[in-house]
């Protein structure tokens, strides 16, 4: 995250004058609302903030924020952001992408931006569908999903965005839900605060082409039983009555009922900061309906950012060789005088 500008802002300071072009009821609205709430807390000036996106309903996001923004081309937002952040480390750079934009055409850029660990915040709106192009299945659509391009059901094994991010050496991985507004705000804030590439998956409802794809997490009634909210150092407890938990049997997680012999001390305790991401990976595998799906921060570890290392090498070069001098450069090696 770029250095705080000290100024204090309100949500309105971040609202652009463009009328919003999402379908009524789209989950994108509530993500936008949370983002506007969170940006002032982060305290970076609007002019120091840049939102970069690809193509998709989700990728319209930058138009609705009164910051600098690039509505790029399909799948390339992480690469655009990489150039921007590497050239301008002073800026706070957000990447907004979708499950198609970020995991289909843009999967490779996402992977490389994450492994390079630039200090950018990547938010992937996962609605398990291609919304903008009217409802084809996406890399996160479940097997057998019937869509305009798969009338007999999808035959692709889906990707798990968090597993992909962890497999790409992510230093920060989190998940939240469009309708779980408080939690979403917290996760966005944590992502912004993290120094390094932050990857956030947000379950987003496309009520037109894939309504309730995440109904179990989207619906506040079902949520408690199908989602476990991670907290660093805390055991994995969930359930409407907070009476269920996750326990490890070797490497196998299992859902247990608390009480009669089983107490919180038996449960798996969350740790965002393990050197190796084995735990984060294991958590990313907990899927509905067999398990509650973890939301919150799965992993948050520090490692040097790409732009800091780049600045470091430039500084070092200047220190050891002095500021660049063209005359010296041109005259190095064999030269001769013609008079």
């Amino acid at each position, binding site marked *: 995250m770029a250095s705080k500008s000290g100024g204090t802002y309100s949500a309105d300071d971040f609202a652009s004058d463009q009328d919003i072009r999402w379908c009524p009821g789209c989950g994108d609205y509530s993500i936008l609302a949370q983002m506007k709430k969170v940006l002032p807390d982060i305290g970076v000036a609007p*002019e120091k903030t840049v939102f970069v996106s690809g*193509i998709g309903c989700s990728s319209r996001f930058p138009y609705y924020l009164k910051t*600098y923004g*690039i*509505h790029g081309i399909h799948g390339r937002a992480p690469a655009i952001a990489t150039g921007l952040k*590497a050239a301008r480390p002073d800026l706070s750079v957000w990447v907004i992408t979708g499950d198609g934009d970020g995991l289909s055409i843009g999967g490779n850029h996402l992977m490389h931006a994450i492994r390079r660990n630039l200090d950018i915040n990547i938010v992937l709106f996962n609605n398990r569908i291609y919304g903008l192009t009217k409802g084809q299945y996406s890399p996160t659509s479940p097997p057998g999903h019937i869509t305009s391009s798969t009338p007999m059901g999808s035959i692709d094994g889906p990707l798990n965005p968090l597993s992909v991010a962890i497999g790409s050496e992510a230093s920060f991985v989190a998940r939240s839900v469009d309708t779980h507004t408080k939690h979403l705000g917290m996760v966005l804030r944590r992502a912004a605060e993290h120094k390094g590439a932050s990857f956030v998956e947000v379950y987003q409802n496309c009520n037109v082409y894939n309504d309730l794809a995440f109904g179990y997490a989207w619906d506040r009634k079902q949520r408690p039983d199908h989602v476990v909210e991670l907290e660093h150092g805390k055991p994995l407890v969930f359930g409407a009555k907070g009476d269920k938990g996750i326990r490890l049997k070797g490497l196998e997680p299992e859902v247990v009922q608390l009480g009669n012999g089983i107490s919180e001390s038996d449960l798996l305790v969350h740790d965002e900061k393990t050197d190796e991401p084995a735990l984060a990976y294991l958590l990313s595998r907990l899927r509905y309906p067999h398990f509650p799906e973890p939301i919150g921060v799965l992993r948050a570890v520090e490692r040097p950012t790409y732009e800091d290392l780049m600045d470091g090498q430039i500084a070092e070069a200047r220190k050891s060789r002095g500021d660049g001098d063209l005359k010296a450069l041109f005259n190095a090696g064999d030269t001769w005088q013609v008079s």
Partner: protein
Amino acid sequence: MSTAESQIPAGRPRPVRELETATVRLAGDSGDGMQLVGGQLTNTSALAGNDVATLPDFPAEIRAPRGTLAGVSGFQIHFASRDVLTPGDRLDALVAMNPAALRENLRDLEPHGVLIVDEDAFDAKGLKLAHYAENPLENGTLDGYQLIRAPITKLTRAAVEETGLGKSLSERCRNFFALGLVYWLYGRDPEPTRRFIEAKFKNVPDVAEANRRALEAGWNFGETSESVTGSYHVPPAEMAPGRYRNITGNQGFAWGLITAAKLSGKELFYGSYPITPASDILHELSRHKQFGVRTFQAEDEIAAMTSVIGAAFGGAMGVTASAGPGIALKSEAMGLAVMLELPLLVLDIQRAGPSTGMPTKTEQADLLQVMFGRSGEAPMPVLAASTPADCFDVIRESWRIATAFMTPVVVLSDAFIATSAEPWKIPDMESLDPIPVSHPGASSNGASFMPYARDERLVRPWALPGTPGLMHRVGGLEKQDITGNVSYDPENHNHMVRVRARKVENIASVIPPQAVDGPESGDLLVLSWGGVYGACASAVARVQESGASVALANLRHLHPMPSNMAELLSRYRRVLIPELNSGQLRMLIRSKFLIDAVGLNKTTGRPFSAVEIEERINSLII
């Protein structure tokens, strides 16, 4: 250490023939280090005051097995006491380190030319690998040449024996033996090469010593061997006063970028993905971080191109480079750059295509790709460099256009000029015009900023993130004139398509009119672009000497073209366009000016020789 004087015997008198020009090729296995010693011969020749041009010719990226035809690597140098424009057509002297090198190169050697071979390499194995049924050194094949049979391998081993290097390491010194012999042949001072050896091998003193000895042994062989009938002297050339150095095209690009960044007060962001023959620009730039150069090796060309768009939006001097296949991958993102109207440079070091083609060979067949290889109407300015030294200059001009008109610009080079070297007069910074770049300042009056408001040249402002009050969003959707908001209005789109085109056309108003070399009007105009310039210039010079009314125009600005082109072309009875493609500039000229321009086209992966051009010219004017 020992000096030239002490080590190299004065030697008995030998005839020294004076030459105006000489073309020499060093050929051997890719493992033999021909490129290395070729570079040395280039330097010392330049230091001796000759004008020089070179043509490195190495096999496709991958190493072939030792001694095979596929593994032959060559380095050609043309040095003269007059202006040199090409690496030379035919060879005056050829060094063949093995039979494969002989087979691959003999065809280019002039009758009675000097032919130096390592006779030790002509054993059964070597001959077989070169598909020689019998030994050409024995069967009279080479009678037509001044054959110098040197036991290079043996003599090198002997010379370096004392250094105690192993057999294979010693044999690695054979190239310096050959170089020493060539130095004697052309009376070159070995001292600079001694210094080079010292510097290069400073961590391995025994290797340095061995190479030094090999160099001297080669010299001594020339001095003493009966088979060497004499030596040559090529006097210094007339050159504009000043300090000179050799420069390759890729080096020219790299240094030109660093210079243009400095002159425009910008930080250079170079995002690129390695590809032959463009990789060396990345390598060179990555060595100069003290200039604040930011080099980014992207995961692919699309990321390279889009990273540069991000950097340009951030206010940096964004540059990417590739060869044809990589440029194809960038094309969608180049279209975005056109839509965003951000200044940045795309360098295309053309190589032989299509597809992977012949990666190390030269061609000019990407012109139409960079002109039209984007969806929709997406005009981009295109410039081309013509010589290694010109690569340095064309970058400044391109960046000046990019920033003055807020547009991405394509700069074309090719494998030939990118890898060949020529003397370059080192400019003093004072002589280089600054490149003024301005950005709108902070606005507090709350009025929303108009990113697509334009000045009289139709140029929009370059507002940078970090500037209060100028927050705005850009994107690939069609945008409303002035406000830059997304717009699907039919008339607006029609307008914007035309505005983007007119803006690029406006560049013609600031570029110099096309100059010609030769008569203002006449029988024939040779229209050259890019790497063919050298061969065309030599050819035109020759026919002009013989009084023909032929002129040369070398087109740097391929789009838009200088405003006087139509008028200029009309002044000649015919127009000849030599290109290393199937007629790409010709097709643009024909459609723009409706003249029946004729072409001279080849796609062998090799540059034109002056003779090829000259013959075509003559066929047209008689």
